[in-house]
C-alpha cells in the first residue's frame, strides 16, 4: 500500500507526511503523473492560494491523473485547500477551475467574523462518517483558512459555523475531505488520519 502525497509546489507537505508515516503508512511525494497512477491512495495537502494550487497541478500535469484516479475509485483525501480544490471553483480565484468533483463554488468567509478562521473549533455531524469514527462529539479540530465550501454541498458529513455553515468533513464514494488540519489537530487529528488509513486497506 503506497500513499501518494501530491506535491504541487506549496502546501504543508512535510507535516502531513510525518503524521502519516508516524501511523505506519508508506508515502511518497508525487510530482509526476506516473506516481499517481501507481498509488493505492492519494492525499491532497493544502496551504496557500487556490490559484497557486491550480497552477501547480497544471504545471506538473497532475490534474488529469487526479481526475482519472477519482474515476477509477482510488481513495483521495483532500486537506484544507485540498478539500476546496475538489469543488468547481473558488471566490479566491474566480477565473480558475478546480477539480470539479463537486459543483459548488468555495466562498470567502464573510466580513462579520474574524478572517482567517484560525484556531480550534468544534464540528456538527450531519451524516455517518468514516473519518470521525471513535472521535467524541465535542472534540476540537485546528482550522486555518479564509475560504470554505458551503455545508449544503451534498458530500458534507460534518459542518462548522464561522460566518456561514461550511463543510468541515466531506465523504462521498472514494472522496474524503477535511477543512481542518488533521496533522495539526493533536490526538484527535491523528485518529482522523488513522481512520482514513483503515478505510483504504
Amino acid at each position: 500500500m503506497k500513499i501518494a502525497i501530491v506535491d504541487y509546489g506549496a502546501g504543508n507537505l512535510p507535516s502531513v507526511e510525518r503524521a502519516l508515516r508516524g501511523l505506519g503508512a508508506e508515502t511518497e511525494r508525487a510530482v509526476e503523473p506516473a506516481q499517481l497512477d501507481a498509488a493505492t491512495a492519494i492525499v491532497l495537502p493544502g496551504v496557500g492560494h487556490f490559484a497557486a494550487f491550480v497552477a501547480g497541478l497544471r504545471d506538473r500535469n497532475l490534474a488529469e491523473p487526479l481526475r482519472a484516479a477519482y474515476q477509477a475509485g482510488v481513495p483521495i483525501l483532500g486537506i484544507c485547500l485540498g478539500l476546496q480544490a475538489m469543488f468547481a471553483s473558488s471566490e479566491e480565484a474566480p477565473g480558475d477551475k478546480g477539480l470539479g468533483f463537486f459543483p459548488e463554488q468555495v466562498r470567502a468567509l464573510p466580513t462579520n467574523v474574524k478572517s482567517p478562521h484560525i484556531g480550534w473549533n468544534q464540528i456538527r455531524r450531519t451524516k455517518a462518517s468514516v473519518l470521525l469514527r471513535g472521535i467524541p462529539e465535542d472534540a476540537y479540530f485546528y482550522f486555518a483558512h479564509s475560504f470554505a465550501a458551503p455545508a449544503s454541498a451534498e458530500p458534507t458529513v460534518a459542518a462548522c459555523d464561522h460566518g456561514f455553515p461550511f463543510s468541515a468533513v466531506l465523504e462521498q464514494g472514494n472522496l474524503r475531505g477535511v477543512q481542518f488540519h488533521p496533522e495539526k489537530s493533536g490526538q484527535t487529528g491523528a485518529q482522523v488520519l488513522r481512520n482514513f488509513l483503515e478505510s483504504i486497506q
Partner: protein
Amino acid sequence: MTLARRIIPCLDVDAGRVVKGIEFEGLRDMGDPAELGARYNREGADELVVLDISASVQGRATFLETIRRVAQQLNIPLTAGGGIRKMEDGRAVLRAGADKVTVNTAAVERPELISELSQQFGAQAVVLSLDVKRSGDSWEAYTRGGRDATGLDAALWAAEAVSRGAGEILVTSIDRDGTCSGFDCDLTAKIASTVPVPVIASGGASTFEDFLAVFTAGRADAALAASIFHQETRSIAALKNFLSASGVPIRMNP
C-alpha cells in the same frame, strides 16, 4: 460549537537553547527547545511559538535546525520568527516546519514584506508581531526587541498590516513584559476592536486570573506566555481547567 481561546507557550531561543532574560543578569538557560516543545504538546498547548531572540546572521542555520527539531515533536501548529528580513527568510522558516512566520522590525521598515509573504503563503501563515509601549492614551509600536520607537500608532499599524495580508496580530506589551503584573487588557481590546483578524496577547502573564481577564475584558483570541510555563509554576492543564470552569471556551481533550 465555539472557537476555543488558545493557550500558547513561547520559547525564546538563543544559540539552540531556550533562554529567559533576567534583569541585570542577562540570559538564563531554560532547557532544550525540542524537549520543552514535546512537553507542551503533551500537556495540551494549543500552539507553540519559537522566537529567535539573537536574530544574528550567523545564528540563522542554528535557528532553522531548532525549528526542525521542535516541529518533529509536535502535532499542533508551530509559529516561528525573529529576524525575518525578507521573503526567503520566511520561506526557510516555513520549510523547516513552521506553519506561520512572525514579522516585526523588517515589516515596519518595508511593509511590502507582509504583502509578499501573504501572497506567497497565505494570510493564515503571516503574523505581525507588534511590540508596544503605552504613551498617554494611546500605544506606540517599537522595533528591535523594544529598543527603537517607530512613531507609529500601534492600532493604525496593526490595521495597515492586516490590509497588507497579515492574518494574526501578536501584541506584546513592553511595559508589562517580565513584570508579572498581568496582560495590558486595554491594549489587546483596542487592537481586537480595530482589526478583523485574531489577536494573540503577550506580556505580563502571571496568574490564572490574568488569562481570564485578557480573554474577557481584553477580548484576546489567544494568550502567550513563556517563563510561567517553563518554570512549571503554572501547568497548562490546570490553567485550562480554571478557564473552562470560568466559562471561557477551551479545548480540553488533547
